[in-house]
């Protein structure tokens, strides 16, 4: 084959060419007046955050993921198993896959009363009274299962569809596919406890090999909302005078940059940078505005538990999440408190107290978010997801704990066209394995994509010669779970 022929060999050059030509940010495109929605599968000459029209008519436009890392115990919170109580202390009939070394093959009884709530009779354990009160809004999936029973890998699986890190998170995929409706804020925002990171830290919201544009941007609920949003020497509200001097500096920068650009026609990346400096100024205002919780009334603040130190931290993040999706952000990820632990649902020992402690912190704000979205008419278009990375096993670890379980866990969905008041799937008599209507993590991803109007078999990104997809349907067999949807 001659080199000439090879030059003309068909090859999906567009994305590589785009990589080569580097990325263009939304600002640059805004300047060029391209803010109308392009098709999701359209040729990408650039990477940006502008809205794209999806494959299907979407049922939802945004997602709030309330990630409950550690592995909430399904048989103590959502999935009543009378056998556990009846056979408490007896040997478990069969083999259980464990992770830690200190397990005994003895059945550990359910630690809380679990009973039906709402018109639909959905089951909730005693530690979650507020979430239980919203029973008729939740869609509960009790037959979730995953591929790995250790935290980092199971978290990666849940967030990126692969049980190892280095791959783009679901939020990256969604913003890559759909862009975002608000061009003054990042499309994918992460709200974590200001005291630190949960398990796996920021690898959880990494964009992997996708452009950094699509990684989760940490918004802080204290201090600067975004890293470097303001100078550390001028924490937030700069004086009139320094605002004026900053403005003059920016004008100079803009002028010098534009002169430089004149020498380099059609280097669009340079224009994008000029636009980004302008966007930075807008974002300072937008971020301050959207995160100014003082604009919320007392009733709302109390609803989220912001008047109580136990719930204030998580409540603040839930309320911020609502304000962010309200202003057009596509994907918001909320992490639980670092108290009692950086993986607060990891009940290896002292299970009862541990679950109670973390439930006290997240239950009320979670319910408040549903209530608030609903009364603002947002629940129809926003998907809320409350889930851990895996569940727990029926036997005893130490004297009063449960070990990790990849074979069964419970995920709660609400809004965005997920069927309210519906409980899906079932586990065996001991809650060890999902046995009916099993839902894999990629199945759930595919279903969320479907509601956002994305065909999970089609949204792809070329990496190392492979058309990567979040769900990898040929490998995982991922399919949309229609039963979960209205």
């Amino acid at each position, binding site marked *: 084959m001659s080199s000439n022929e090879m030059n003309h060999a068909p090859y999906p050059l567009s994305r590589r060419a785009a990589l080569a030509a580097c990325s263009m940010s939304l600002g640059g495109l805004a300047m060029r007046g391209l803010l109308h929605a392009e098709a999701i599968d359209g040729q990408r000459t650039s990477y940006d955050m502008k809205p794209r029209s999806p494959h299907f008519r979407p049922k939802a436009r945004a997602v709030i993921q309330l990630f409950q890392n550690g592995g909430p115990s399904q048989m103590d919170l959502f999935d009543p198993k009378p056998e556990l109580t009846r056979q408490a202390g007896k040997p478990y009939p069969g083999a259980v896959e464990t992770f830690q070394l200190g397990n005994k093959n003895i059945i550990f009884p359910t630690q809380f009363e679990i009973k039906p709530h709402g018109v639909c009779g959905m089951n909730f354990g005693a530690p979650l009274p507020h979430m239980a009160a919203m029973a008729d809004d939740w869609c509960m999936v009790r037959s979730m299962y995953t591929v790995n029973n250790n935290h980092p890998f199971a978290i990666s699986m849940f967030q990126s569809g692969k049980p190892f890190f280095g791959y783009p998170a679901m939020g990256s995929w969604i913003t890559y596919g759909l862009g975002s409706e608000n061009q003054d804020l990042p499309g994918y925002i992460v709200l974590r406890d200001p005291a630190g990171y949960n398990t796996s830290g920021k690898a959880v919201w990494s964009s992997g090999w996708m452009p950094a544009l699509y990684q989760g941007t940490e918004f802080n609920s204290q201090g600067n909302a975004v890293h470097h949003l303001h100078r550390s020497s001028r924490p937030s509200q700069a004086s009139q005078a320094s605002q004026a001097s900053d403005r003059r500096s920016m004008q100079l920068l803009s002028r010098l940059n534009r*002169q430089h650009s004149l020498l380099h026609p059609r280097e669009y990346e340079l224009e994008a940078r000029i636009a980004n400096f302008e966007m*930075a100024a807008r974002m300072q205002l937008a971020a301050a505005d959207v995160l100014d919780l003082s604009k919320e009334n007392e009733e709302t603040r109390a609803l989220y538990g912001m008047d109580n130190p136990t719930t204030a931290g998580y409540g603040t993040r839930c309320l911020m999440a609502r304000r962010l999706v309200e202003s057009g952000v596509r994907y918001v990820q909320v992490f639980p408190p670092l108290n009692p632990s950086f993986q607060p649902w990891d009940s290896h020992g002292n299970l009862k107290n541990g679950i109670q402690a973390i439930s006290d912190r997240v239950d009320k704000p979670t319910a408040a978010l549903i209530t608030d979205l609903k009364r603002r008419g947002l629940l129809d278009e926003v998907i809320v997801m409350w889930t851990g990375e895996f569940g727990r096993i029926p036997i005893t670890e130490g004297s009063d704990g449960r070990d990790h379980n990849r074979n069964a866990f419970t995920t709660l969905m609400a809004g965005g066209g997920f069927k309210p008041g519906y409980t899906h799937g079932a586990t065996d008599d001991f809650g060890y394995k999902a046995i009916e209507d099993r839902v894999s993590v990629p199945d759930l991803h595919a279903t969320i994509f479907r509601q956002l109007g994305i065909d999970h078999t089609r949204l792809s990104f070329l990496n190392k010669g492979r058309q990567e997809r979040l769900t990898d349907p040929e490998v995982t067999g991922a399919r949309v779970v229609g039963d979960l949807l209205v």
Partner: protein
Amino acid sequence: MVRALLVAVLTVICWAPGVGAEEPAKHAQWRLVAEQVNGKSHRAEDEYGYEPWRFLRTTSSEGPVAARRWIRDGKYVPLDHSSERLFNQPILGSIYQVDPTWKAPFVGGVTATHTADVTWKKGEVLVTPGPEHAAILAWQSPVSGVLAIRGTVDNRQTCCGVNSQVNWYVERGSSPDVVNGFKPVTLAQGISDDRVKQGVSRFDVLDLEISVGDYIYIVVDARADGTATPHHGDATAVDVLLTVSGATLPPPPTFKQDVLPVLASNCLECHGGDVREADLDLRTVSGMIFGGESGSVLTPGKLETSYLWTMIQSGQMPPQEAGTLSAAEKGVIRRWISGGAATDEDLTKARVREFVSAEDREYWAFQPPRQPPLPAIRNPGLATSPIDYFLLKRLEEKGLTYSATASRETLVRRLAFDLTGLPPTTRQVDAFLEDTSPGAYEKLVDRLLASPRYGERWGRHWMDTVGYVDVRLYDGDATTLYPNEGIWRYRDYIIRSFNADKRYDQFLQEQLAGDEMVNWRDASEWTPEIMEKLVATGYLRSIEDHTSEAQYGIERRYEVLFDMMTMVSTSMLGLTFECTRCHNHKYDPITQRDYYRLMSFFESSYNPHAWLRPQERWIPDVGPVARADIDRHNAEVDGKVNNLQSRIKELEKDGDEAGQVSAIKKTVTDLNGSKRSYGKIQALFDVPNPPVTHVFRRGDCFKRGLPVTPGFPEVLTPSARPGQQLARVELPLPPGTSGRRLELAHWITSRQNPTTARVIMNRLWFHHFGEGIIATPDNIGRNGAPPSHPEILDWMAVEFQQGGWSLKKMHRLVLTSRAYRQTSRRPAELTRAEQLDPDNRLLWRQNMKRLESEIIRDALLAASGRLDLHSFGPPVPVTRPVSGLSMVDAEGGNGQNRRSVYIFARRVYPLKFMEIFDSPIMAINCSRRMNSTTVLQSFAQLNSDFMIGVAGDAARRIEQAVGNEPAKLVRSSYRTILGRLPGEEEQQACLEFLSVQAVGYAAESQDEKAGALAFADLCHMLLCMNEFLYVE
């Protein structure tokens, strides 16, 4: 002992398979040790083609530990995944030594004689009970007749107190049943206890009527007599000889009568007729020989290379949901294959599937490069380097030519950044601008290539391809650090190698197999050569490794190997192998077998069955003599300190009236301060007993396919016959190592290897032109991007190999070309060139490049005047705040202004400022930096403490040099920050800005500082300019 006891010499087998109808045999025998380790297999296959041996364990025990009564209710289960590492695997005689995390129970054959605290010999079978599970050997009788069982149980464990004993039982029963269990009949039982020198128990059960399918169990259990906690994990040698007299064995199966019916009802629905999963047709024997996606599935007479049997035997096929084969059905297939796969089909034309066709090999990148002649061009006057001929030829074909040469200011800046990663100093700029001699440009190239900064710049590129980080583990927690101690020596090795222009072939060989190139195991001192070679293997030690924690099983060890395969194949071979871990490559002719053959080169060092955890995998940075000297010195110090401390205690007890204690305490402090220490070399080296490598079905290490031996990818080797390898090079090998990686290293750097030289030349091109001849530096195969100028890559590859693999020579060739010196600017109007070739693949101009994150930081430090050019040594620490805003740790020493290549490199948390400018997350390695343009970058430029500090320093430095006259300040700041003088309009704009800004600050009543503040702002904005971030 065991052997001697049982040497009832193995009777000649009286029954010969393959002879006609049923025939009574006088007696048939099965001996555990012989059949486990006689080389036939570890699949417990017997002489007759049966598979009578099983390894089991009990499901559970009950009651508190102290009074543990082992369940004797026949609830036996095969050892499965939870203890997979121990099942069906050759067990190394030294497993206790290398990995105390291996959990009993287990059973297996000993592959190497071991003599330490516990002694066992190669060939013995070890059975080790667990804390909650007895270990059980089971034998299922394939025949009927009268059985005699003779055997021994020998607990060799001498340690661990009164309960270091095992209970053993010989039982008879039905098949193991995990749920219902059964009541086995005990035929013999006893205790084996090496502690009281009565370790060896014998049993002798005679005249037992037995039928096909009956089970005999040998149970070995940790012993608990209720007085103390039982000790588990006792290494117990077991041997059994079973003799059946009057045995009747069935005739050997034939394909049509016996095998086809089994296949038809279990296999052909998916592997025959219209549906052929894995492209496999099992309807005919020739179809099996031809095979499917994994190659041939049948080798008549050889079970171990017949994939059909591997899959059936391991239960992977048929798939669970399609049912399972009965033991009898499995037996039919097993005996049919081992008996030679008798069939009346004509097999003379049967052939084995080929994966790599002649056409595949013809792909240009899979053939050794040949140097094409320089083409004739219309305008040879334009060419200043051989590469210009090729580029101009292609441009001229389209009626195009080069753009104008860039300005000298641009060239000096471009060269300085490309070769040293730093902006040129004003002195360097002036010197070049003033040097009007003919060779001025070439001299500048040489000066920069000779700069120690060159190795820091190009070493960093190599560190990307390697995935260099200073942490071990996966670095998931922002605030916790797990340093890979001493790995920085490898970083220094890289930088020194680039600076010394070490031959690239040697550079690769050392990194793959430095430990196999010197005899360090017998050395008393580390010579510089030994140090260098050992440190070089750090190449293979940046891989994420989770195995430091006890919970992780064998799959995590394989993850290390898999990641390493990705790193090695993308960094050196330029081929993407990842896909072939699970299946044959869809686009490139690379097979799954190729993947595992290549992986096998590394399994003698990263040995999943004799694993060193990351914290154990290091070598002291001093030789044994010096190390002993240090140990002795420290022991002496400790002795003295101990004495003094006793003295202090005595004195303090007595009241210390003479006030001696404080003086003694000072002596103690001084003594402790005189202690010496040694550091670590993170090296890779062989451990004994390389395992057998298997192909893993779907990349799952629990689904073993056929065994493979180390080998190179077929398509890259000249042979057209599958499986045949290059003639192996006889290499001198130091003792204690397998030579596997050295062989690989020599193959990779062989001139016959088509990819190695092309890959590095493509990277060199990539970094000088902003784009590769192949845009995918990690993949130059058919699946990579198409090459723009394959003829240049070939020409350069050969030139490189012939020129002694010198990278600096090749830099010169590229940098002195007219192509490199072109301007990157396009005219305002669209030219014909841009219309025809908008992506500039033909290089009708230079490309504009954004600086990488490290270089942005280095350039900022250089502008501020506080860049610290100290080279080498341990990494500069970084802070790890919960906010994620990591900074260079000013408290951690005085290295905070050193070049970024020396900053502690984290896998997931690069220095925040650098992360914002696309420092990669090193999941494995980075073949190509992402280059994003985000608003977070604007924020970091405008508001980060680092930028504000740098701008202030730059401003002060300039003011000190030129005073405070605005026009001078503007000119000098342009020269310092952008390497050029301002234009008329720029000068004017900046002057206006300075005066207005100063007025503004003065209004804020900061009169005396107003001018300085305004000038700091000006410097800040110049540092924020696009011009600063990009190289033309």
